[in-house]
Protein backbone atom coordinates (compact mmCIF):
# COMPACT_ATOMS: atom_id res chain seq x y z
CA UNK A 1 0.00 0.00 0.00
CA UNK A 2 1.23 3.51 -0.86
CA UNK A 3 -0.12 6.64 0.73
CA UNK A 4 0.12 10.12 -0.73
CA UNK A 5 1.30 12.54 1.90
CA UNK A 6 0.00 16.02 0.98
CA UNK A 7 3.46 17.38 1.76
CA UNK A 8 5.88 14.65 0.67
CA UNK A 9 3.99 12.87 -2.12
CA UNK A 10 3.40 9.14 -2.63
CA UNK A 11 5.30 7.11 -0.04
CA UNK A 12 5.59 3.53 1.13
CA UNK A 13 3.18 2.50 3.86
CA UNK A 14 6.16 1.66 6.12
CA UNK A 15 6.74 5.40 6.68
CA UNK A 16 3.34 5.79 8.35
CA UNK A 17 1.62 4.66 11.50
CA UNK A 18 -2.12 4.60 11.90
CA UNK A 19 -4.12 6.05 14.76
CA UNK A 20 -7.49 4.65 13.71
CA UNK A 21 -10.83 6.17 12.71
CA UNK A 22 -10.62 9.89 11.86
CA UNK A 23 -13.11 10.27 14.66
CA UNK A 24 -10.07 11.16 16.74
CA UNK A 25 -10.51 14.69 15.40
CA UNK A 26 -13.92 15.07 17.04
CA UNK A 27 -12.92 15.20 20.67
CA UNK A 28 -15.96 15.73 22.95
CA UNK A 29 -16.11 18.45 25.57
CA UNK A 30 -14.58 17.56 28.90
CA UNK A 31 -17.97 17.31 30.60
CA UNK A 32 -19.76 15.61 27.69
CA UNK A 33 -20.42 12.52 29.82
CA UNK A 34 -19.38 8.89 29.79
CA UNK A 35 -21.49 7.84 26.80
CA UNK A 36 -19.98 10.50 24.52
CA UNK A 37 -16.47 9.68 25.72
CA UNK A 38 -17.04 5.94 25.31
CA UNK A 39 -18.16 6.55 21.72
CA UNK A 40 -15.12 8.69 21.07
CA UNK A 41 -12.53 6.46 22.70
CA UNK A 42 -13.81 2.95 22.07
CA UNK A 43 -16.85 2.43 19.87
CA UNK A 44 -16.22 2.28 16.14
CA UNK A 45 -18.19 1.97 12.90
CA UNK A 46 -15.38 -0.35 11.77
CA UNK A 47 -16.66 -0.45 8.18
CA UNK A 48 -15.77 -3.15 5.66
CA UNK A 49 -15.28 -0.71 2.80
CA UNK A 50 -14.79 3.04 2.64
CA UNK A 51 -13.29 4.43 5.82
CA UNK A 52 -11.74 7.72 6.93
CA UNK A 53 -8.69 7.26 9.15
CA UNK A 54 -6.00 9.27 10.80
CA UNK A 55 -2.43 8.41 9.78
CA UNK A 56 0.85 9.86 10.95
CA UNK A 57 3.77 10.36 8.57
CA UNK A 58 6.20 9.18 11.18
CA UNK A 59 9.45 8.81 9.27
CA UNK A 60 8.57 11.57 6.80
CA UNK A 61 7.37 15.07 7.60
CA UNK A 62 5.51 14.11 10.83
CA UNK A 63 2.18 15.41 9.52
CA UNK A 64 -1.15 13.98 10.63
CA UNK A 65 -3.13 12.97 7.56
CA UNK A 66 -6.75 11.99 6.97
CA UNK A 67 -6.68 8.97 4.66
CA UNK A 68 -9.91 7.89 3.00
CA UNK A 69 -9.43 4.32 1.83
CA UNK A 70 -11.12 0.96 1.36
CA UNK A 71 -10.48 -1.50 4.19
CA UNK A 72 -11.21 -4.46 1.90
CA UNK A 73 -9.20 -3.59 -1.23
CA UNK A 74 -6.76 -1.13 0.40
CA UNK A 75 -7.41 1.36 -2.39
CA UNK A 76 -6.66 4.91 -1.22
CA UNK A 77 -9.24 7.42 -2.48
CA UNK A 78 -8.13 10.64 -0.89
CA UNK A 79 -5.61 12.13 1.53
CA UNK A 80 -5.52 15.55 3.18
CA UNK A 81 -3.79 17.23 6.09
CA UNK A 82 -5.71 16.64 9.29
CA UNK A 83 -5.55 20.22 10.49
CA UNK A 84 -6.43 21.97 7.26
CA UNK A 85 -8.56 21.35 4.21
CA UNK A 86 -5.71 21.04 1.74
CA UNK A 87 -6.89 18.42 -0.74
CA UNK A 88 -4.25 16.16 -2.17
CA UNK A 89 -4.11 13.60 -4.93
CA UNK A 90 -5.51 10.11 -4.51
Amino acid sequence: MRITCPICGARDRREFTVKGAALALERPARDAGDVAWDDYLHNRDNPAGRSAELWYHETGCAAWIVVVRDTVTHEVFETRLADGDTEAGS
Partner: protein
Amino acid sequence: MRFSGLRVLKEGLTGNKGWSPHWRDADPKPEYDVVVIGGGGHGLATAYYLAREHGITDVAVLEKGYLGGGNIGRNTTIVRANYFLPGNSEFYSHSLKLWEGLEEELNYNVMHSQRGLINLFHNDGQRDAIVRRGNAMVNQGDDAILLDRAALRRKVPYLDFDNARFPVQGGLFHPRGGTARHDAVAWGFARGASDRGVDLVQNCEVTGIDVDRGRVTGVQTTRGAIRARKVAVVVAGRSSQVATMAGMRLPIESHVLQAFVTEGLKPCIDHVVTFGMGHFYISQSDKGGLVFGGDLDFYPSYASRGNLPTAEHVMEAGMTLMPMIGKARLLRSWGGIMDMTPDGSPIIDRSGIEGLYLNCGWCYGGFKAVPGSGHCMAHLVATDRPHDAAARFRLDRFRTGRGLMDEEGTGSQHSLH
Protein backbone atom coordinates in the same frame (compact mmCIF):
# COMPACT_ATOMS: atom_id res chain seq x y z
CA MET B 1 -20.01 -41.11 11.95
CA ARG B 2 -17.78 -43.14 14.28
CA PHE B 3 -14.22 -44.32 13.93
CA SER B 4 -12.42 -47.45 15.06
CA GLY B 5 -9.14 -49.13 14.20
CA LEU B 6 -10.99 -51.97 12.52
CA ARG B 7 -13.07 -49.54 10.48
CA VAL B 8 -10.01 -47.64 9.28
CA LEU B 9 -8.45 -50.93 8.16
CA LYS B 10 -11.59 -52.08 6.38
CA GLU B 11 -12.14 -48.73 4.63
CA GLY B 12 -8.49 -48.64 3.63
CA LEU B 13 -8.85 -52.01 1.91
CA THR B 14 -12.12 -51.14 0.18
CA GLY B 15 -11.30 -47.75 -1.32
CA ASN B 16 -12.61 -45.55 1.52
CA LYS B 17 -16.10 -45.59 0.05
CA GLY B 18 -18.04 -46.26 3.24
CA TRP B 19 -17.40 -43.02 5.16
CA SER B 20 -20.32 -40.70 5.70
CA PRO B 21 -20.41 -36.98 6.62
CA HIS B 22 -19.77 -36.13 10.26
CA TRP B 23 -22.78 -33.91 10.66
CA ARG B 24 -26.11 -33.12 9.01
CA ASP B 25 -26.04 -30.23 6.54
CA ALA B 26 -29.44 -28.90 7.62
CA ASP B 27 -31.94 -26.63 5.88
CA PRO B 28 -33.21 -23.84 8.11
CA LYS B 29 -36.57 -24.23 9.87
CA PRO B 30 -38.80 -21.15 10.26
CA GLU B 31 -38.28 -20.96 14.03
CA TYR B 32 -35.83 -21.95 16.79
CA ASP B 33 -35.40 -21.44 20.51
CA VAL B 34 -31.87 -20.20 19.92
CA VAL B 35 -30.11 -19.01 16.77
CA VAL B 36 -26.32 -18.83 16.88
CA ILE B 37 -24.89 -16.55 14.18
CA GLY B 38 -21.46 -17.80 13.05
CA GLY B 39 -20.21 -21.35 12.48
CA GLY B 40 -16.67 -20.85 13.73
CA GLY B 41 -15.13 -22.49 16.77
CA HIS B 42 -16.97 -20.33 19.27
CA GLY B 43 -20.39 -20.62 17.59
CA LEU B 44 -20.17 -24.40 17.27
CA ALA B 45 -18.93 -24.81 20.84
CA THR B 46 -21.78 -22.57 22.07
CA ALA B 47 -24.33 -24.74 20.28
CA TYR B 48 -22.70 -27.91 21.59
CA TYR B 49 -22.75 -26.82 25.22
CA LEU B 50 -26.31 -25.45 24.92
CA ALA B 51 -27.38 -28.96 24.02
CA ARG B 52 -24.97 -30.83 26.26
CA GLU B 53 -25.15 -28.77 29.46
CA HIS B 54 -28.55 -27.12 29.27
CA GLY B 55 -30.67 -29.53 27.24
CA ILE B 56 -31.48 -26.78 24.72
CA THR B 57 -31.47 -28.58 21.39
CA ASP B 58 -33.86 -26.49 19.29
CA VAL B 59 -30.86 -24.55 18.05
CA ALA B 60 -29.54 -23.48 14.67
CA VAL B 61 -26.00 -22.37 13.84
CA LEU B 62 -26.16 -20.04 10.81
CA GLU B 63 -22.93 -19.80 8.84
CA LYS B 64 -22.60 -17.47 5.86
CA GLY B 65 -19.90 -19.56 4.18
CA TYR B 66 -18.85 -23.10 4.95
CA LEU B 67 -18.47 -24.44 8.42
CA GLY B 68 -14.99 -23.83 9.81
CA GLY B 69 -13.94 -21.53 6.96
CA GLY B 70 -13.21 -18.54 9.21
CA ASN B 71 -10.49 -18.02 11.77
CA ILE B 72 -11.05 -21.41 13.31
CA GLY B 73 -9.40 -22.86 10.20
CA ARG B 74 -6.75 -20.15 9.86
CA ASN B 75 -5.04 -19.89 13.22
CA THR B 76 -1.68 -21.17 14.42
CA THR B 77 -3.39 -23.48 16.92
CA ILE B 78 -1.67 -22.51 20.15
CA VAL B 79 -3.46 -23.52 23.34
CA ARG B 80 -2.22 -22.13 26.67
CA ALA B 81 -3.26 -20.72 30.03
CA ASN B 82 -0.52 -18.22 30.80
CA TYR B 83 -2.53 -15.06 31.33
CA PHE B 84 -1.80 -12.66 34.12
CA LEU B 85 -4.79 -10.47 34.97
CA PRO B 86 -7.83 -11.53 37.02
CA GLY B 87 -10.60 -12.19 34.52
CA ASN B 88 -8.37 -13.60 31.83
CA SER B 89 -6.49 -15.78 34.28
CA GLU B 90 -9.46 -17.79 35.55
CA PHE B 91 -11.12 -17.92 32.15
CA TYR B 92 -8.16 -19.38 30.24
CA SER B 93 -7.49 -21.74 33.12
CA HIS B 94 -11.08 -22.97 32.80
CA SER B 95 -10.71 -23.31 29.06
CA LEU B 96 -7.47 -25.30 29.29
CA LYS B 97 -9.11 -27.76 31.67
CA LEU B 98 -11.91 -28.24 29.14
CA TRP B 99 -9.27 -28.82 26.44
CA GLU B 100 -7.69 -31.51 28.57
CA GLY B 101 -10.92 -33.50 28.59
CA LEU B 102 -12.10 -32.51 25.12
CA GLU B 103 -11.15 -35.59 23.11
CA GLU B 104 -12.95 -37.85 25.54
CA GLU B 105 -15.87 -35.45 25.78
CA LEU B 106 -16.32 -35.28 22.01
CA ASN B 107 -14.97 -38.76 21.29
CA TYR B 108 -13.00 -37.02 18.56
CA ASN B 109 -9.27 -36.75 17.96
CA VAL B 110 -8.54 -33.02 18.06
CA MET B 111 -4.80 -33.80 18.25
CA HIS B 112 -4.37 -31.77 21.41
CA SER B 113 -0.64 -31.89 22.05
CA GLN B 114 0.66 -30.47 25.34
CA ARG B 115 4.19 -30.19 24.10
CA GLY B 116 5.01 -27.22 26.29
CA LEU B 117 5.26 -23.52 25.53
CA ILE B 118 8.31 -21.36 26.18
CA ASN B 119 8.20 -17.54 26.41
CA LEU B 120 11.74 -16.25 26.08
CA PHE B 121 13.22 -13.27 27.89
CA HIS B 122 16.20 -11.21 26.84
CA ASN B 123 16.93 -8.71 29.60
CA ASP B 124 16.45 -8.20 33.34
CA GLY B 125 13.24 -6.21 33.00
CA GLN B 126 11.62 -8.94 30.94
CA ARG B 127 12.84 -11.52 33.41
CA ASP B 128 11.11 -9.73 36.28
CA ALA B 129 7.87 -9.46 34.30
CA ILE B 130 8.02 -13.13 33.39
CA VAL B 131 8.64 -14.21 36.99
CA ARG B 132 5.60 -12.21 38.00
CA ARG B 133 3.51 -13.78 35.26
CA GLY B 134 4.71 -17.24 36.26
CA ASN B 135 3.69 -16.62 39.86
CA ALA B 136 0.23 -15.48 38.74
CA MET B 137 -0.12 -18.67 36.70
CA VAL B 138 0.90 -20.84 39.66
CA ASN B 139 -1.49 -18.95 41.95
CA GLN B 140 -4.27 -19.66 39.47
CA GLY B 141 -3.46 -23.36 39.79
CA ASP B 142 -1.74 -23.69 36.44
CA ASP B 143 1.86 -24.57 35.73
CA ALA B 144 4.92 -22.39 35.10
CA ILE B 145 8.62 -23.11 35.48
CA LEU B 146 11.37 -20.53 35.19
CA LEU B 147 14.24 -21.78 33.03
CA ASP B 148 17.67 -20.21 33.30
CA ARG B 149 19.99 -20.12 30.33
CA ALA B 150 21.52 -23.53 30.96
CA ALA B 151 18.17 -25.26 31.47
CA LEU B 152 16.76 -23.52 28.41
CA ARG B 153 19.76 -24.52 26.30
CA ARG B 154 19.10 -28.18 27.11
CA LYS B 155 15.53 -27.86 25.79
CA VAL B 156 16.05 -25.61 22.78
CA PRO B 157 19.74 -25.74 21.80
CA TYR B 158 19.06 -24.25 18.37
CA LEU B 159 18.43 -20.64 19.49
CA ASP B 160 21.01 -17.94 18.83
CA PHE B 161 21.70 -17.55 22.55
CA ASP B 162 24.53 -15.07 22.12
CA ASN B 163 22.83 -12.81 19.63
CA ALA B 164 24.64 -9.50 19.98
CA ARG B 165 21.51 -7.41 20.20
CA PHE B 166 18.98 -9.72 21.86
CA PRO B 167 20.87 -12.37 23.84
CA VAL B 168 18.58 -15.08 25.22
CA GLN B 169 18.66 -15.07 29.01
CA GLY B 170 16.04 -17.70 29.79
CA GLY B 171 12.40 -18.56 29.44
CA LEU B 172 9.13 -19.28 31.17
CA PHE B 173 8.12 -22.88 30.52
CA HIS B 174 4.40 -23.72 30.54
CA PRO B 175 4.36 -27.53 30.23
CA ARG B 176 0.59 -27.81 29.70
CA GLY B 177 0.68 -25.35 26.81
CA GLY B 178 0.81 -26.68 23.26
CA THR B 179 -1.22 -26.99 20.08
CA ALA B 180 -4.30 -28.74 18.67
CA ARG B 181 -5.65 -29.48 15.22
CA HIS B 182 -7.81 -26.44 14.47
CA ASP B 183 -10.19 -27.96 11.89
CA ALA B 184 -10.74 -31.03 14.03
CA VAL B 185 -11.93 -28.85 16.89
CA ALA B 186 -14.60 -27.35 14.62
CA TRP B 187 -15.55 -30.75 13.22
CA GLY B 188 -15.68 -32.37 16.66
CA PHE B 189 -17.96 -29.71 18.12
CA ALA B 190 -20.04 -29.75 14.92
CA ARG B 191 -20.58 -33.49 15.13
CA GLY B 192 -21.37 -33.35 18.84
CA ALA B 193 -23.90 -30.56 18.33
CA SER B 194 -25.48 -32.13 15.25
CA ASP B 195 -25.86 -35.51 17.00
CA ARG B 196 -27.80 -33.75 19.76
CA GLY B 197 -30.25 -32.18 17.32
CA VAL B 198 -28.64 -28.82 16.50
CA ASP B 199 -29.17 -27.68 12.89
CA LEU B 200 -25.93 -26.58 11.23
CA VAL B 201 -26.93 -24.37 8.31
CA GLN B 202 -24.25 -23.36 5.81
CA ASN B 203 -24.38 -20.70 3.08
CA CYS B 204 -26.82 -18.79 5.24
CA GLU B 205 -25.75 -15.20 5.83
CA VAL B 206 -27.58 -13.20 8.44
CA THR B 207 -28.56 -9.85 6.89
CA GLY B 208 -30.79 -8.42 9.61
CA ILE B 209 -31.70 -8.80 13.26
CA ASP B 210 -35.36 -8.31 14.16
CA VAL B 211 -36.00 -6.41 17.36
CA ASP B 212 -39.46 -5.58 18.67
CA ARG B 213 -39.84 -3.25 21.66
CA GLY B 214 -36.38 -3.98 23.01
CA ARG B 215 -36.61 -7.75 22.48
CA VAL B 216 -35.05 -9.85 19.77
CA THR B 217 -37.56 -11.82 17.71
CA GLY B 218 -35.49 -13.39 14.97
CA VAL B 219 -33.12 -12.83 12.06
CA GLN B 220 -33.28 -12.16 8.33
CA THR B 221 -31.01 -14.36 6.23
CA THR B 222 -30.13 -15.11 2.62
CA ARG B 223 -32.19 -18.27 3.13
CA GLY B 224 -35.26 -16.52 4.49
CA ALA B 225 -36.51 -15.13 7.80
CA ILE B 226 -36.00 -17.22 10.93
CA ARG B 227 -37.79 -16.51 14.21
CA ALA B 228 -35.91 -17.06 17.44
CA ARG B 229 -36.43 -16.45 21.14
CA LYS B 230 -32.75 -15.86 21.64
CA VAL B 231 -29.93 -14.90 19.28
CA ALA B 232 -26.22 -15.26 19.96
CA VAL B 233 -23.82 -13.17 17.85
CA VAL B 234 -20.56 -15.14 17.52
CA VAL B 235 -18.98 -13.82 14.33
CA ALA B 236 -15.40 -12.84 15.30
CA GLY B 237 -13.97 -10.38 12.72
CA ARG B 238 -17.45 -9.49 11.42
CA SER B 239 -18.84 -8.50 14.83
CA SER B 240 -19.22 -4.81 13.97
CA GLN B 241 -21.29 -5.51 10.85
CA VAL B 242 -23.66 -7.90 12.59
CA ALA B 243 -24.02 -5.62 15.63
CA THR B 244 -24.98 -2.77 13.29
CA MET B 245 -28.01 -4.86 12.27
CA ALA B 246 -29.24 -4.43 15.84
CA GLY B 247 -28.33 -0.74 15.90
CA MET B 248 -25.21 -1.23 18.02
CA ARG B 249 -21.71 0.18 17.67
CA LEU B 250 -19.09 -2.03 19.30
CA PRO B 251 -15.68 -1.24 20.80
CA ILE B 252 -14.08 -3.30 18.03
CA GLU B 253 -11.68 -2.67 15.16
CA SER B 254 -11.02 -5.43 12.62
CA HIS B 255 -7.42 -6.18 11.73
CA VAL B 256 -5.55 -8.80 9.73
CA LEU B 257 -3.25 -11.31 11.38
CA GLN B 258 -0.97 -13.35 9.15
CA ALA B 259 0.47 -16.83 9.50
CA PHE B 260 3.12 -18.73 7.56
CA VAL B 261 4.06 -22.36 6.98
CA THR B 262 7.15 -23.97 5.48
CA GLU B 263 7.62 -27.22 3.60
CA GLY B 264 7.55 -30.34 5.78
CA LEU B 265 10.75 -31.02 7.72
CA LYS B 266 11.91 -33.76 10.06
CA PRO B 267 11.00 -33.03 13.70
CA CYS B 268 13.23 -30.21 14.93
CA ILE B 269 11.11 -27.83 17.02
CA ASP B 270 9.54 -29.75 19.89
CA HIS B 271 7.76 -26.90 21.70
CA VAL B 272 5.92 -23.70 21.03
CA VAL B 273 8.52 -20.92 21.29
CA THR B 274 7.88 -17.18 21.43
CA PHE B 275 10.51 -14.49 20.88
CA GLY B 276 10.52 -11.77 23.53
CA MET B 277 12.05 -9.00 21.39
CA GLY B 278 10.34 -9.24 18.01
CA HIS B 279 7.02 -10.36 16.66
CA PHE B 280 7.66 -14.07 16.15
CA TYR B 281 6.38 -17.36 17.54
CA ILE B 282 6.69 -20.86 16.13
CA SER B 283 5.75 -24.51 16.44
CA GLN B 284 6.05 -27.52 14.15
CA SER B 285 2.95 -29.24 12.84
CA ASP B 286 2.50 -33.01 12.82
CA LYS B 287 3.05 -32.94 9.06
CA GLY B 288 6.44 -31.32 9.69
CA GLY B 289 5.73 -27.77 8.51
CA LEU B 290 7.07 -24.95 10.64
CA VAL B 291 4.02 -22.88 11.53
CA PHE B 292 4.78 -19.34 12.61
CA GLY B 293 3.40 -15.86 12.91
CA GLY B 294 4.02 -12.45 14.38
CA ASP B 295 1.74 -9.53 14.96
CA LEU B 296 -1.07 -7.63 13.24
CA ASP B 297 -0.58 -5.69 10.03
CA PHE B 298 -1.31 -2.64 12.19
CA TYR B 299 -4.08 -0.93 10.28
CA PRO B 300 -7.78 -1.80 10.08
CA SER B 301 -8.39 -4.36 7.35
CA TYR B 302 -10.94 -6.85 6.07
CA ALA B 303 -8.66 -8.24 3.36
CA SER B 304 -8.00 -11.87 4.23
CA ARG B 305 -4.38 -11.55 3.23
CA GLY B 306 -1.51 -9.68 4.75
CA ASN B 307 0.94 -6.96 3.83
CA LEU B 308 4.61 -7.37 2.98
CA PRO B 309 6.16 -5.20 5.72
CA THR B 310 4.72 -7.45 8.42
CA ALA B 311 5.75 -10.60 6.55
CA GLU B 312 9.29 -9.25 6.31
CA HIS B 313 9.35 -8.32 9.97
CA VAL B 314 8.25 -11.80 11.01
CA MET B 315 10.91 -13.45 8.82
CA GLU B 316 13.62 -11.16 10.18
CA ALA B 317 12.60 -11.80 13.77
CA GLY B 318 12.61 -15.54 13.12
CA MET B 319 16.07 -15.41 11.58
CA THR B 320 17.35 -13.36 14.52
CA LEU B 321 16.14 -15.90 17.02
CA MET B 322 16.78 -19.21 15.24
CA PRO B 323 18.98 -18.85 12.16
CA MET B 324 18.74 -22.60 11.58
CA ILE B 325 15.31 -22.24 9.96
CA GLY B 326 16.70 -19.98 7.24
CA LYS B 327 17.02 -22.73 4.67
CA ALA B 328 13.44 -23.94 5.02
CA ARG B 329 11.29 -22.86 2.10
CA LEU B 330 8.08 -21.02 2.81
CA LEU B 331 5.06 -22.77 1.31
CA ARG B 332 2.13 -20.56 2.11
CA SER B 333 0.98 -17.52 4.02
CA TRP B 334 -2.55 -16.37 4.78
CA GLY B 335 -4.49 -14.00 6.99
CA GLY B 336 -7.61 -13.88 9.11
CA ILE B 337 -9.74 -10.99 10.37
CA MET B 338 -9.35 -10.33 14.08
CA ASP B 339 -11.94 -8.63 16.28
CA MET B 340 -9.69 -6.30 18.32
CA THR B 341 -10.94 -4.61 21.50
CA PRO B 342 -9.27 -1.54 23.07
CA ASP B 343 -7.86 -3.54 26.02
CA GLY B 344 -7.14 -6.72 24.07
CA SER B 345 -9.57 -8.83 26.10
CA PRO B 346 -12.86 -10.40 24.98
CA ILE B 347 -16.55 -9.69 25.54
CA ILE B 348 -19.14 -12.32 26.54
CA ASP B 349 -22.19 -10.38 27.64
CA ARG B 350 -25.79 -9.38 27.18
CA SER B 351 -26.30 -6.66 24.61
CA GLY B 352 -28.89 -4.35 26.15
CA ILE B 353 -31.47 -5.86 23.79
CA GLU B 354 -33.36 -8.66 25.52
CA GLY B 355 -32.52 -12.11 24.17
CA LEU B 356 -29.52 -10.85 22.14
CA TYR B 357 -26.08 -11.93 23.37
CA LEU B 358 -22.59 -10.93 22.27
CA ASN B 359 -19.46 -13.03 22.05
CA CYS B 360 -16.58 -11.16 20.43
CA GLY B 361 -13.28 -9.35 20.91
CA TRP B 362 -11.09 -12.46 20.85
CA CYS B 363 -8.31 -10.55 19.17
CA TYR B 364 -5.50 -12.88 18.09
CA GLY B 365 -6.03 -15.35 20.91
CA GLY B 366 -9.42 -16.94 20.53
CA PHE B 367 -8.47 -20.46 19.49
CA LYS B 368 -7.41 -21.55 22.96
CA ALA B 369 -10.65 -20.01 24.20
CA VAL B 370 -12.97 -22.12 22.03
CA PRO B 371 -14.18 -24.66 24.64
CA GLY B 372 -14.23 -22.12 27.49
CA SER B 373 -16.02 -19.49 25.43
CA GLY B 374 -18.64 -21.94 24.14
CA HIS B 375 -19.18 -23.23 27.65
CA CYS B 376 -19.60 -19.77 29.20
CA MET B 377 -21.63 -18.41 26.28
CA ALA B 378 -24.06 -21.33 26.49
CA HIS B 379 -24.45 -20.64 30.21
CA LEU B 380 -25.19 -16.97 29.56
CA VAL B 381 -27.71 -17.70 26.80
CA ALA B 382 -29.44 -20.45 28.76
CA THR B 383 -29.62 -18.77 32.17
CA ASP B 384 -29.31 -15.05 31.38
CA ARG B 385 -26.51 -14.87 33.95
CA PRO B 386 -22.77 -14.83 33.24
CA HIS B 387 -20.72 -17.91 34.05
CA ASP B 388 -18.28 -17.25 36.92
CA ALA B 389 -15.25 -17.85 34.71
CA ALA B 390 -16.34 -15.16 32.22
CA ALA B 391 -18.10 -12.72 34.56
CA ARG B 392 -15.50 -10.01 33.91
CA PHE B 393 -15.84 -10.04 30.13
CA ARG B 394 -18.33 -7.18 30.32
CA LEU B 395 -19.20 -4.84 27.49
CA ASP B 396 -19.62 -1.83 29.78
CA ARG B 397 -16.06 -1.94 31.14
CA PHE B 398 -14.97 0.49 28.44
CA ARG B 399 -17.62 3.05 29.32
CA THR B 400 -17.14 2.82 33.06
CA GLY B 401 -13.39 2.21 33.05
CA ARG B 402 -13.89 -0.44 35.72
CA GLY B 403 -12.46 -3.91 35.11
CA LEU B 404 -10.37 -3.19 32.02
CA MET B 405 -8.07 -6.12 31.27
CA ASP B 406 -5.06 -4.64 29.49
CA GLU B 407 -2.89 -7.75 29.59
CA GLU B 408 -0.02 -6.12 27.69
CA GLY B 409 -0.05 -3.00 29.84
CA THR B 410 0.07 -0.71 26.81
CA GLY B 411 -3.08 1.30 27.54
CA SER B 412 -6.68 0.63 26.66
CA GLN B 413 -6.75 2.11 23.15
CA HIS B 414 -7.46 0.60 19.77
CA SER B 415 -4.18 1.60 18.17
CA LEU B 416 -2.15 0.00 20.96
CA HIS B 417 -3.17 -3.68 20.70
